[in-house]
């Protein structure tokens, strides 16, 4: 369907942008890539009176891999993440997950800030941000604040952002040398939204797993960590038994969603299968690198 009518502003500073949003009092929306907002407007799920385009505001792009942290500007596109050699070295889990986001043409416009603010439970970036304990820097008419990624996401398509707040950057803590990672997803077609996906990261403390983190998305109403699965990994050897136990713990712990594409029981089983497979692959990758 054609889009509902709206006014359009393309400010050059964050101050102007937040002032426009504050003035409109909830009737305005930011537009970044437009790859989620415009379909929502076409379906009349959103009908803002004003769109505030971020494309001319300086300082919202850029991928900076520094010693302590990795900073990604809110307007960094999927395409930029997939093209970054520095990210592939420093946080390989991120490009691996983003490889499942949408299609070539959409990746040329879709941004990570838009993905976080849209908070679709089946989107990859918010899940990786939650898994990694990323911090989200936002600016509003009243100043700026930093929100942990898991506190930003409040529910399906729901965040704790105020109407006048704009995400400016996301910061990921740097990984220690040798951290292992896992990601796997099931979607009906490559690039479609996930029916379920899992992500994990862990260190090796001698022969044992330490600092394990496991997160699920697509199968639950928000991307979320799964502490029972993490407990099943920590202190154990990275073998099939351990991974099977973690998979069973994850399946048991989640409250799966149901929709047209899959029922709750199917999603519950899928999460276990994906997690076991992804964890096994995290070891196979290690062996390949060693050879």
């Amino acid at each position, binding site marked *: *369907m*054609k*889009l*509902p*009518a*709206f*006014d*359009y502003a*393309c400010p050059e500073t964050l101050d102007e942008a937040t002032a426009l949003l504050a003035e409109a009092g909830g009737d305005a929306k930011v*537009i970044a890539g*437009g*790859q989620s907002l*415009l*379909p929502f407007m*076409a*379906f009349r799920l959103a009908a803002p009176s004003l*769109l505030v*385009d971020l*494309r001319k505001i300086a300082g919202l792009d850029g991928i900076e891999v520094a010693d302590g942290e990795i900073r990604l500007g809110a307007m960094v596109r999927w*395409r930029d993440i997939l093209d970054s050699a520095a990210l592939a070295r420093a946080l390989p889990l991120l490009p691996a997950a983003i490889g499942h986001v*949408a*299609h*070539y*043409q*959409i990746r*040329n*416009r879709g941004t990570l800030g838009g993905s976080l603010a849209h908070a679709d439970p089946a989107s990859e970036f918010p899940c990786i941000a939650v898994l990694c304990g990323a911090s989200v820097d936002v600016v509003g008419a009243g100043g700026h604040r930093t929100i942990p990624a898991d506190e930003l996401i409040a529910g399906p398509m729901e965040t704790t952002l105020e109407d006048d707040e704009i995400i400016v950057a996301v910061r990921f803590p740097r990984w220690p040398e040798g951290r292992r990672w896992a990601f796997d997803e099931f979607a009906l*077609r*490559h*690039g479609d939204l996930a029916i379920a996906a899992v992500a994990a990261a862990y260190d090796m403390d001698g022969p044992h797993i330490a600092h394990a983190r496991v997160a699920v998305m697509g199968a639950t109403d928000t991307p979320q960590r799964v502490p029972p699965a993490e407990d099943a990994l920590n202190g154990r050897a990275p073998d099939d038994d351990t991974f099977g136990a973690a998979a069973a713990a994850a399946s048991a712990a989640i409250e799966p969603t149901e929709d047209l594409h899959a029922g709750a029981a199917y999603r519950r089983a899928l999460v276990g299968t994906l997690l076991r497979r992804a964890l096994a692959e995290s070891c196979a990758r290690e062996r390949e690198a060693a050879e």
Partner: protein
Amino acid sequence: MKIALTVNGRPAALDVAPRTTLADCLRHALGLTGTHLACEHGVCGACTVIVDGAAVRGCLTLAVQADGAEVTTVEGLAGDGALTPLQEAFRRHHALQCGFCTAGILTTLHALLTENPDVEACEIREVLSGNICRCTGYIPIVEAALEARAAYRRGGDPAQ
């Protein structure tokens, strides 16, 4: 709103309502009906055009967002009227039947092959996941793209 953009090498100054998508602007204001629209919400790829070198959804880009941009549509590929090597390859391999999806697939593959003339079949298939074709079964499209790589490797822009 007043915007100025370059479409297929020619400057265009237009006055558009903010809600006009780039695809509608190209079709209705500029008469470039080679760009097709089907789903109008980002899933089919029929509306793909090239904006500043990148293939994008014409239905998920506002015309006002393309202010100042260089846009290439399917009409701009064969600039002098002769088919480009990619288009020739489509004809040779029967990579189109009804042709509804073809403009979006040609612009997508033109951007892809310009970026990477050595692209492998598996990546071509992944990229085509963003374009729906109800007729061909995709196999001849992949074959045409693989064959066209040679022309893009020879350097320059085979479409111009």
